[in-house]
C-alpha cells in the first residue's frame, strides 16, 4: 500500500491563554485524518471548530501539542515543503505586481529571473490573467487576486494543496467560476487536496470525500462521507442532481446538531 499524501495522526492542539496562563483552550482533540494520493478531501464543520488550526498543523506552520503529521510517509518537521497553502485572507505581497507575486516562490528557490518570469507569465495565462502581469494587487478585483494566489502556489507544483476557505470572500458567481477552474486545474494532474470550508454545498460539489468536524472546543472528526458523484463536474449543474440533494440532506442532518451545539455554547459565553 502506498503512503497517503498527508496523515494527521491523533493531533491535539491546546493553547494557553496569554493573559491567564492557567487557562487552557483545546481547539482540536485527537483528530486523525488522511488524504490519499490524488484525492480531493473537504473538511467541513461549524464556525470556530478549529478547521484552520488543523490546516496550519498540516502546513507545518503550527506545532501540534501532541500527535504527529506525516507527509508521504515521512514525519513532518518544520514547514511542509510538499504543500501549497492557499489562505482565506489576502496573502499576496501588496508591493509586488501580479507577475512578481507569482514568481516569488521560484525566486526564493533560486530560479533564474528570466526563466521564472517566463513560467509566471505562463501560469498567469492559465488562470486567465494575461495582460494583468504588471498590475498591483490593489488594482485587481477580489476574484483576480485569488487567481494570482492560486497561480503563485501552483507554479511550485506542490504535491499537496491546502486550502483554507479560499473563496469565502468572493461573491456567489465569482466563487462558482473559481470552483470550476480549480476543478479543471486539479483534473490535469490530480494533486492531493485538503480543502476547508464551512459550506456543505461547496464541499460536496468539489470533493471525493467530506470529513465533518464536531463543534469546538476539542473538536474532532465525527463523520466521513464518500462523494460518489461522477467527474468531471460542473459545480453549478451538479447541485441540481438527485444524488447531490440526497448527500446534502444526509450531511445536513448530521451537521445541524453540531451547529446547534456550537450556537448554544456561543450563547452561553
Amino acid at each position, binding site marked *: 500500500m502506498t503512503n497517503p499524501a498527508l496523515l494527521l495522526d491523533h493531533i491535539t492542539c491546546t493553547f494557553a491563554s496569554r493573559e491567564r496562563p492557567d487557562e487552557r483552550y483545546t481547539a482540536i482533540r485527537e483528530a486523525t485524518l488522511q488524504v490519499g494520493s490524488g484525492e480531493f478531501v473537504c473538511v467541513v464543520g461549524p464556525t470556530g471548530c478549529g478547521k484552520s488550526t488543523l490546516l496550519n498543523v498540516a502546513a507545518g506552520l503550527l506545532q501540534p501539542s501532541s500527535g504527529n503529521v506525516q507527509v508521504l510517509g515521512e514525519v513532518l518537521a518544520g*514547514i511542509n515543503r510538499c504543500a501549497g497553502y492557499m489562505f482565506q*485572507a489576502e496573502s499576496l*505581497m501588496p508591493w509586488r505586481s501580479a507577475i512578481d507575486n507569482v514568481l516569488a516562490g521560484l525566486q526564493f528557490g533560486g530560479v533564474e529571473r528570466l526563466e521564472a518570469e517566463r513560467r509566471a507569465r505562463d501560469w498567469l495565462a492559465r488562470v486567465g490573467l494575461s495582460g494583468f502581469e504588471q498590475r498591483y494587487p490593489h488594482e485587481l478585483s477580489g476574484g483576480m487576486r485569488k487567481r494570482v494566489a492560486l497561480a503563485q502556489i501552483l507554479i511550485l507544483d506542490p504535491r499537496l494543496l491546502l486550502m483554507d476557505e479560499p473563496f469565502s470572500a468572493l461573491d456567489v458567481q465569482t466563487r462558482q467560476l473559481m470552483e470550476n477552474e480549480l476543478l479543471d486545474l486539479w483534473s490535469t494532474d490530480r494533486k492531493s487536496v485538503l480543502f476547508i470550508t464551512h459550506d456543505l454545498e461547496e464541499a460536496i460539489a468539489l470533493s471525493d470525500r467530506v470529513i465533518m468536524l464536531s463543534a469546538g472546543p476539542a473538536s474532532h472528526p465525527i463523520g466521513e462521507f464518500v462523494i460518489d458523484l461522477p467527474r468531471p463536474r460542473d459545480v453549478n449543474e451538479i447541485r441540481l442532481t438527485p444524488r447531490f440533494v440526497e448527500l446534502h440532506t444526509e450531511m445536513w442532518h448530521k451537521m445541524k446538531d453540531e451547529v446547534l451545539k456550537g450556537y448554544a455554547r456561543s450563547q452561553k459565553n
Partner: protein
Amino acid sequence: MGRASPRTSRVRLALYHVLLLGGVLFFWYAMTEPGLIPPFYFDDPTRAKFFFGQPLEVLRRIWSWFYGGAIYLHLGVTLLETLLAFAIGTVLGLAFGLWLALSPTASMLADPYLKAMNAMPRVILAPIFAVWFGLGITSKVVFGVTLVFFVVFFNVYQGVKEVSPVVLANARMLGASGRQLLRYVYLPSATSWVFSSLHTAIGLAFVGAVVGEYLGSAKGVGYLIHQAEGVFDIDTVLAGILVLTVFALILDFVVSQIETRLLVWRPRSAETEML
C-alpha cells in the same frame, strides 16, 4: 461659487495661496515702513522696523547673499550637516529598528532605555556634543543623528511589527528563508512606514544642524543668524530663517519624489475624483 473642473479649482487655489502670502507681506510692509501710517504704538517711527524688520530689507539681504556669494559657504555647510545627519540617522534607525523588531530578547532588554532616551529633551545635548566633538561639523551631525534616529527607529519598529501575518506565512510556505523574509517581506513592508518618518526626519536633521550652529560654530546659516542677533540685525535673522525654510521645503520635496517612485504599489486614496 459654482462647480469648477478640478484643473481650474487648482489654479484658483494657487491664486489664493499667492494672495494670502501677498496680503501678509503687505501688512508687514505697511506696519514697519517708517512714516507710512501714523504712529500708534511706538513713539519713534523707526522703532517698528527695528523690532520686526522689513520685507524689502529682508529680500535685499537675501539677494546680496546670493548675488555677492557670501551665503554659499554657510549654506553648503548647513546642508552638508543636514544630509549627513539625515543619512546616518536613517541608516542607524533602520538597522536598529529591524534588529529589535525581529529579536524579542534584544527588544525587551533595550525597551526602557530607548523610551527614556526618546523622552529626554535632546536639544540639551547640543552643548555637550560641542564640547566632545568641537565646533566643526561633527558635533552638529552627531546632534542631528540623535534627533533623526528615534523617529526612524520607532517607525521601522512599528512597520516590521505590523507586517501582515498572512503575507508572512504565505512567503514562508513559498519557501522563503529567514534572510529572504527580511529582504522581500519585512523591508518592503516597512518602507511605507519609513517614508512617513523621513519627512519628519529631514526636518529634524535641519533643526539639528541649525541649532548646533547657533550654539557654537564658525560657519553655517545658524552661525549667520546668531551673529546677526548679536547686533540686533532682525532683517538678517529673518533672511536666514527664510532661506532655511525654502531649503527645508526643497529637501522635503525631494523625499516626496523618491517616495512616490518607490511606493508605486500603494493604493492612492484620490485615484478618482468626483465630478
